[in-house]
């Protein structure tokens, strides 16, 4: 029951942000100061979440050591920003990072 309440709350809460965006999109200027601030807050919020999951995960990922998680993240980033056209980029970066986690999982 409490799961359903939490889900309903999340569905409504998430949709409200989307709807708020639609209703403001007709009025707010993307060059305005409040918009610049909101964008900064958004990036910081998403970063806070992603770094938290990486550094202090809950669930299965917590079984792997912090060093392995950091190594896999760093390797993924290096491949992502690698200047070579075919060897670098998002998908190769994701593959390398997940492969390291996979190998670490084999030994865990």
């Amino acid at each position, binding site marked *: 029951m409490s*799961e359903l309440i939490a889900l309903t709350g999340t569905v409504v809460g998430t949709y409200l942000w989307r709807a708020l965006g*639609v209703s403001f999109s007709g009025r707010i200027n993307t060059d305005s100061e409040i918009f610049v601030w909101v964008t*900064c807050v958004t990036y910081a919020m998403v970063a*806070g979440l992603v770094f938290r999951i990486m550094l202090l995960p809950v669930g299965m990922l917590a079984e792997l050591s912090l060093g392995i998680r950091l190594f896999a993240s760093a390797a993924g980033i290096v491949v992502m920003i690698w200047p070579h056209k075919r060897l670098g980029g998002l998908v190769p970066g994701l593959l390398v990072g997940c492969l390291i986690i*996979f190998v670490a*999982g084999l030994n865990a």
Partner: protein
Amino acid sequence: MAVLFAGFIGFGALGESLGLSVYMTVATSVLVFALPGQIVLFEMLAMGSTAIVAALASSITAARFMPMTLTVMPHFDRRHRTGLLYLVVHFLAMTSWAVAMRDFPKIKPEYRRPYFTGFSMLCWCTTLPGSTIGYLMAGSVPTPIKLALIFLNPLFFLLNFTEVRQTSHRLAIAFGGLIGPLVYLVYPDYSLLAAGLIGGSLAYAIHRWTRARGARQLIQQVPLEALPDKREGT
């Protein structure tokens, strides 16, 4: 889109590993359609947080949809900016937002809403099979593969941060990434709010300060003769 599909497979596996039902897992993906918020919701439910706190915390992570919507919708043709957007906006995801920002300059305004709606709905359609497959496979799939799939979600967002070009946004990511985990150690429920408001405002303050300083320097560099001389009129 393949990443999104794999992401929802990972989410399905997460739902199974946290001991939630398959219906709950799939319903969350289809109705919320915001992976980070879904992960927060599930992790908080697994930690035993109360329903209201879990719903609030996951809703707070969805705040990014407001600026994301704000930056996408004004590009649509004016005739297309109708009440239908309140339906279209449910299908907005980080992926379709990034694609829209990349492709809209090359697309005529009258084709932007159809393009965006089609791509976004396709992304949304991956959620049901993705999280169902992920959930059902989780029991039979070896641990290393499960780990790799669960890791895919945060890694995807982490790698996307390297594409961010604006200094103020990069600062916001750095501050948020530092404050989020630190606050989480003390007050887990408020870590995202703190990371966003403190980290984001700090980045914005630095952005304003450097911009103001840059403007002052620019004024000082302009030779006095170049400025319109107001004394002549008086």
